């Protein structure tokens, strides 16, 4: 589909939800959506017969340092077109509505993002840690994350043989 035509359709359908729209390197569209309008925007993208972005390819969180974002990669089998939907979040209180209603398969993706970034998905039925243990401290993919020295009293750092020295201060060879 002609990208300009798609932009026109998207602008008319999504309306005020769109904050900006850019083309990406690989002919995708990057749509930045306002957090308040995310659920309606996702519903339109998925259900509008002219769009039909019904396949969720990917979901991820990003920590930009000063703000956070969640990104949804959607695909429309009818148009053979991909879009990237991005929502900027407040870094101190990252909250975003869950898209579990629109895309059932997003369940684990959102849990992973919560696990690694601490972004809370409002309305998610089972928002627990997915990959890390439930009693883990912090969210590792945040840029300010410091790897804990202890986990439940167990030292987490491994001895690096290359830095280890013997009693005389000489490296082991």
């Amino acid at each position, binding site marked *: 589909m002609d990208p300009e035509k798609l932009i026109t359709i998207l602008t008319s359908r999504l309306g005020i939800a769109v904050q900006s729209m850019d083309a990406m390197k690989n002919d995708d569209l990057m749509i930045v959506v306002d957090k308040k309008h995310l659920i309606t925007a996702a519903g339109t993208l998925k259900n509008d017969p002219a769009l039909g972005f019904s396949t969720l390819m990917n979901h991820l969180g990003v920590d930009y340092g000063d703000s956070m974002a969640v990104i949804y990669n959607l695909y429309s089998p009818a148009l053979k077109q991909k879009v990237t939907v991005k929502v900027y979040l407040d870094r101190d209180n990252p909250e975003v509505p869950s898209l579990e209603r629109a895309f059932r398969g997003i369940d684990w993706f959102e849990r992973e993002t919560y696990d690694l970034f601490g972004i809370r998905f409002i309305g998610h039925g089972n928002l627990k840690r997915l990959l890390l243990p439930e009693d883990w401290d912090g969210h590792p993919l945040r840029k300010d994350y410091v790897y804990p020295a202890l986990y439940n009293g167990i030292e987490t750092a491994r001895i690096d043989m290359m830095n280890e020295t013997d009693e005389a201060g000489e490296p082991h*060879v």
Partner: protein
Amino acid sequence: MNAVAAYFKNIKDAVSTTLTGMRITLRYWVREPAITVEYPDRLGKGKTKDDIVADRFRGFLKLDSLKCIGCMQCMRICPINCIRINVEKGPVGRMLTLFDINQAKCMYCGLCVEECPSQALTFTKRFEGACFDVRELRIAHILAPTPVAKLRRDGKGESS
């Protein structure tokens, strides 16, 4: 009537497919030879451990200290920092005083070998790393301070 036909067809299918399968396994049982390489002591006639791996095999790393120009590119590219190099300014020029590779940590990705401009760092075919102390796998390639080589035009290092 259909149900009866299906009943007997089931029996026929089960018997015939089972017999086909058993015919194939019987052929393997009786005819096909084993293809196992009986490592380590029965590798086949006249074969050594070097012959059972390919020519490009990525085994333990080897440094030709006469070729090394001390550029430290291998150390920089190594994703897991298992190479440690030390170059000091000596009386006759830059001296290589330390070139250690931690073969226990190395993941044999080959990036360092590709990066080496003078082809001083190469792979060997050695793949047996079992030892009693993991520290034995930290291998020192420079035992005494060695002057670094200069990079020749053709890309080969040369002793200076």
